[in-house]
């Protein structure tokens, strides 16, 4: 199963810290809903830049 190139697993970002590394979107620069990660667009062979709502929202905010 392919992974989204923008999906990372981190324990800390900003003021948020977790005991176990969890899903972090490097495009949105924030931890994302766990379910967004385990059914991530990248894992379904889709293109994050075109098909991922999180990516598109982050791009639109730039």
């Amino acid at each position, binding site marked *: 199963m392919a992974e989204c190139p923008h999906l990372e*697993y981190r324990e800390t970002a900003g003021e*948020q810290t*977790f005991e*176990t*590394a*969890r*899903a972090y979107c490097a495009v949105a620069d*924030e*931890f*994302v*809903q*766990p*379910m*967004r*990660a*385990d*059914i991530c*667009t990248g894992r*379904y062979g*889709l293109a994050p830049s075109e*098909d991922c*709502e999180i990516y598109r929202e982050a791009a639109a905010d730039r």
Partner: protein
Amino acid sequence: MNASYHDGEPAVVTAALTGGVHGKEANPNLPETPAEIGEAAAACELAGASVVHLHARRENGERAFSTDRFQQVADAVREATDDVILQHSTGGTAAPEDRRIEPLRTDPPPEMASLDMGPLNRYDHLTSENTRAFVDRLHGEMRERGITPELEVFNDGHLNETLAFLDRADTTDPPYLNLIFGGGTTSPPSPRRLLAHLDDVPDRAEVNVIGFGPHQLPVTTTSLLVGGHARVGLEDNCYYRRGEPATSNAQLVERTAEIAEQLGRPVATTAETRSILGL
């Protein structure tokens, strides 16, 4: 359904503790580990919940469907609580059907489990299909294990599906419908929409109500007024009021229990809930 607060019947309060969508990134008070879920269940039981709706998570917060992980959650809840009723989720967008059956296979089985009554969209590219064949398969396994289904009605179309299901299925009596209000595939949230749904619910049914996000308090309170029951908790809503994150699941349960009492609906004890739902 023709009940109302006039009847003064006990109200069943369900606590949806964890869910499978958002996690601690949304509200750090949302319990994810078995120990945290057990602790939250105990607090909710004290606050008035007689049913706890359970999901399981992996250590990183992502969804878990395995019987083993649900067993850990169920064991933790049973150890921490007095006599609360366990209701396992069988929902799971994009999860294989065989995995979604696993939460039913704990020892002992849960007294209740959720049964999604039709398809629902998730994000832009996914649909949780919940075909009729899979609904019947899940229900068949529930009946074999003595598990009472809560029929999850996400919208009007699911109400049609539910009525057809009740015609074809040898299910528990009374049927227990859970009407769901919010965005996306769920019913548009409003008291009038809830009342309209009730027109189509069989008289013999018991009705529970969910409202997502800011709709949790209004639609569950409406349900209490019209003789229904209420589900609250961090699975459905992370906030106590606008801009103020909830401090716990129990905080949300406590508020709904107080509203029920104020409206003349005593909060159902676990024994009363078992009687009302025919468990």
